[in-house]
């Protein structure tokens, strides 16, 4: 168990999750002319003023920061769609609505770098915050249902950042249950005499490991 709590090996840092999100494709409207870019991650452009083009988010942000384009906010980030999502999110206490896997990071990057391109910025911001809160509350309630019988937890539509936040907790919980619920720990002594000694062996051994 201790092996998995090593942050360097198993958990993505927030910047790393953001890094992954930056490859999501988004539409921009450039205000400059530029030839096609043939990059390792794909070919983009050519770019003409006022003609929309699809690029990865990192590229969009880079151009935006230099004042070379406007970013078209994705459809799911409109007040209308987010209001619907929030309602649906509230109405179904056991399910998560379909949002982009990186919705937290994408909206965050757009708020930080392209807030002037977002219509009704404050509304959108607070809607996304509300959605996050509702979803997170669901995760927390869901955690209460984990028991020794839990071999699998289904979290359909949970987003990347949400996964990353609950990961250490869920994993340790499941492991603790798994460990204490394993047949070695609860079966009758005669049937498990052999196994028991193994378990006993493991005790001191674990302490000696350099963790």
């Amino acid at each position: 168990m201790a092996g998995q709590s090593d942050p360097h090996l198993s958990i993505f840092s927030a910047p790393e999750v953001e890094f992954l999100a930056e490859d999501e494709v988004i539409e921009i409207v450039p205000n400059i002319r530029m030839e096609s870019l043939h990059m390792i991650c794909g070919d983009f452009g050519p770019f003409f003023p006022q003609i929309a083009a699809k690029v990865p988010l990192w590229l969009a942000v880079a151009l935006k920061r230099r004042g070379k384009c406007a970013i078209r906010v994705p459809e799911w980030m409109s007040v209308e769609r987010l209001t619907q999502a929030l309602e649906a999110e509230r109405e179904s206490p056991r399910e998560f609505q379909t949002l982009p896997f990186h919705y937290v990071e994408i909206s965050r990057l757009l708020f930080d770098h392209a807030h002037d391109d977002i219509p009704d910025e404050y509304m959108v911001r607070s809607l996304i915050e509300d959605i996050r809160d509702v979803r997170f509350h669901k995760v927390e309630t869901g955690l209460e249902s984990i028991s020794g019988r839990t071999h699998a937890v289904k979290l359909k539509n949970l987003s990347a950042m949400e996964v990353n936040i609950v990961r250490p907790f869920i994993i340790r919980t499941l492991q603790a249950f798994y460990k204490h619920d394993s047949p070695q720990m609860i079966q009758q002594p005669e049937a498990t005499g052999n196994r028991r000694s193994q378990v006993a062996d493991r005790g001191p051994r674990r302490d000696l490991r350099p963790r």
Partner: protein
Amino acid sequence: MASGSEPWSSGVAEEDALIGETTDVELLKRAWRNEKAAPEILQFQAALVLRAREQIQLLEGTVEEFVGNGVDDLAVSLYQMDLDRTQFLLRSYLRLRLQKIEKYMIHISKTNLWNRLSEQEQNFAKRCTDIMEKHLEQSVLSRLPFGYQSILKQSISSEEDDMVPEPQLDTFVFCKTRGDVGAFQLDDTGDEMVDLVADDLYVLRYKSIKGLVENGQIDLV
């Protein structure tokens, strides 16, 4: 794929089929993610790493040319960013593997996990083990009473090597199915089944889905 010279696991056919629709960056990202989330070391993606290296070198050359030819600064800086991102991925992937090797070097060298390492990684693991053995020998083991001097065993009475750190395969991981896997058996006894549908997100025991990770049917997130 043709440039690969390493022996390949069963994941190869799967990867070949997907290559048409994804870039090497996507593949590298997936390899990086899986490697990061998996408790044990996975098969080294030799061909992929080679291709990524080549593309990085190529782009480095192009960028230099651009600077010489006075291509506009904006494009150059964008290319540079693309280059930096790919390099970060590649380096982080390789570094992750080195961390795992350092942690589990003895276990890896004793099992068939050894074949998952690249040649350079195998050399690294050997040197690392040598140095560690020497260090422990000099600083501690040589001063312990007879019977307690092994780097692998707690004492001479231990039947097996009981001081070798091993990855915990029992741990739980977050995973996303790539296509429909169908009903999947979670444990040996067969009383735990899950129906894995495309794009589902699950928390499962690594041990039970190990095979799916190795042949690319499931991604760790």
